[in-house]
């Protein structure tokens, strides 16, 4: 996979070296196709060329219907369109199976890429994303893909249909917020805790229409998995994109995945931010978002003892290998509390395979966990962990809205994989630091 630049090399070099532009302005300047060779400034509405476009079984069937209505016979570039069957995989009903069939048929007709049984954002990171891309997905958590130094944003079905047809999108160049995490990360505190803390600080509309750049020594030390968790939940604050600029860790990850193309885009040193949030993480703790809003956040100690029926570890937020690994570390030699179900959904087949080879899956199974296929099922309340009336779940997914995981009378608490694992042992919300040596 390669990124595209609409302008010539001189302009590209000029933009990359510019000291006054944000990351978002730089990427959008080199992708714009309405006025090629003109800087894309904050608040300007531009038309840009997309590097990759994707949709999943929750959004693609409607997009395919729209394309038919528009009379589009051929998509813009079959190589750059990726369809994911992940939200309810394998199908849990006839209707869903029919939606999947529509997608498979479309992929064959258009000869575009389709994959099944891997959560879309994780699969994109593993297989396609390279720094410098503009990625548009028909899923709000497309922001996850900003963790590899891209500008990645979500849209709906009609809009992704227009992008499948044209390869272009209109965008307002967003203002940017810079979030700097510095200091020494305390034991038992993870990327998920940092982003929950930020949610409580800026609220669930605090970054609406804006891009968030994450930086600081903590982020620079973070793995791609942890960076993905930050970018993933940026949209919970309303952000258009969540970004961690590429560095040696990004490069190593890409090379390990067999990819090389990299556009080294860094925000200018004098770039303007609408807000700069600087946090020393030293005093941070494990956090929990209480029902029914993601910004309803408290320290784990304030909710400790809250009984749970289900503990869920998975989703595009926290279903990666390092998440399963930390859960296995906590659950090693322990048992999930009687009456509580621990559901673990690896984010992709590769994550599953890695966890299997390393012995992590065996540890989790021995502790009493149920391992599912890689799907969005539990997080969006379709299958593999739907909650009944009055049930309470601690989940490392991204949303705790009313009815999100099933019954409108159920409740979802959000936390890190470590907190989820510790809570599964006790059967009540538990501080994971007790289990980490």
């Amino acid at each position, binding site marked *: 996979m390669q990124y595209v630049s609409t302008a010539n090399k001189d302009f590209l070099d000029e933009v990359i070296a510019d000291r006054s532009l944000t990351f978002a302005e730089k990427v959008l300047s080199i992708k714009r196709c309405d006025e090629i060779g003109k800087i894309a400034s904050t608040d300007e509405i531009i038309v840009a060329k997309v590097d990759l476009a994707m949709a999943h079984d929750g959004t693609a069937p409607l997009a395919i219907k729209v394309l038919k209505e528009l009379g589009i016979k051929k998509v813009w570039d079959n190589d750059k369109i990726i369809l994911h069957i992940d939200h309810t995989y394998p199908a849990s009903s006839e209707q869903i199976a029919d939606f999947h069939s529509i997608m498979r048929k479309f992929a064959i007709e258009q000869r575009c890429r389709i994959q099944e049984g891997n959560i879309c954002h994780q699969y994109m990171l593993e297989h396609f994303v390279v720094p410098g891309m503009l990625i548009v997905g028909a899923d709000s958590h497309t922001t996850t893909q900003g963790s590899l130094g891209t500008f990645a944003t979500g849209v709906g079905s009609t809009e992704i249909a227009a992008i499948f047809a044209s390869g272009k999108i209109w965008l307002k160049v967003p203002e940017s917020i810079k979030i700097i995490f510095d200091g020494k990360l305390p034991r038992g505190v993870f990327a998920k805790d940092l982003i929950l803390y930020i949610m409580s600080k800026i609220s669930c*509309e605090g970054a609406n229409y804006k891009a968030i750049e994450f930086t600081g020594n903590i982020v620079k030390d973070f793995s791609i998995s942890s960076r993905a968790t930050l970018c993933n939940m940026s949209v919970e604050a309303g952000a258009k994109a969540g970004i961690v600029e590429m560095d040696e860790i990004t490069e190593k990850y890409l090379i390990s995945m067999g990819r090389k193309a990299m556009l080294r885009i860094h925000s200018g040193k004098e770039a303007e931010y609408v807000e700069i949030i600087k946090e020393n993480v030293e005093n941070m703790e494990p956090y929990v978002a209480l029902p029914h809003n993601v910004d309803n956040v408290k320290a784990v100690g304030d909710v400790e003892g809250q009984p749970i029926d289900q503990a869920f570890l998975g989703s595009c937020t926290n279903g990666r290998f390092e998440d399963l690994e930390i859960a296995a570390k906590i659950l090693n030699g322990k048992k999930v509390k009687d009456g509580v179900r621990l559901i673990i959904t690896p984010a992709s087949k590769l994550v599953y395979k890695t966890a299997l080879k390393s012995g992590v899956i065996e540890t989790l199974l021995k502790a009493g966990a149920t391992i599912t296929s890689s799907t969005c099922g539990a997080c969006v309340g379709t299958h593999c962990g739907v909650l009944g009336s009055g049930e309470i779940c601690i989940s490392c997914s991204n949303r705790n809205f009313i009815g999100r995981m099933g019954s409108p009378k159920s409740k979802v608490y959000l936390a890190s994989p470590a907190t989820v694992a510790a809570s599964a042992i006790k059967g009540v919300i538990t501080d994971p630091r007790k289990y980490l040596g």
Partner: protein
Amino acid sequence: MEGRAWKFGDNINTDIIIPYKYKARTIDPKSLANHCMEGIDPKFSKKVRKGDFIVAGKNFGCGSSREQAPVAIKACGISAVIAESFARIFYRNAINIGLPVIAHKDFPKIINEGDTIEVDLKKGVIKNLTKKKIIRVEKQPKFLEKMLQAGGLVEYYKKFRKFPW
């Protein structure tokens, strides 16, 4: 456009507007409409009349990219959503499917449930006829306005054989 106001608070998210379980089952607007706002008012779709308005607080439509959320609202007969602010994907989706969305930071505060509202998008004026208050709203960029006037992206494309940007 003239109709009654249905009032909601802040952060009305897409799971409240249309839970995934229905969205996974169907893309038929009428079937979706039956479950519109179910997360907060299960009888909403039965009570609402064609031409009514949804009036809400901050961050309306936050959450998922599901276009089925504005589709369900439109299929219920709602003629426009007036809110203090909108989440960005919902805002785009609404315009793309031809559901007018009007953001004003103060106006929703002076609308009560059941008030009669009149909206003139061409003039950029909304009125609370019950309370006899008028406000002017900021116009959208031209291409978005054209798209709304055509009835959404699909209708625009059918009419002009090109995308509006």
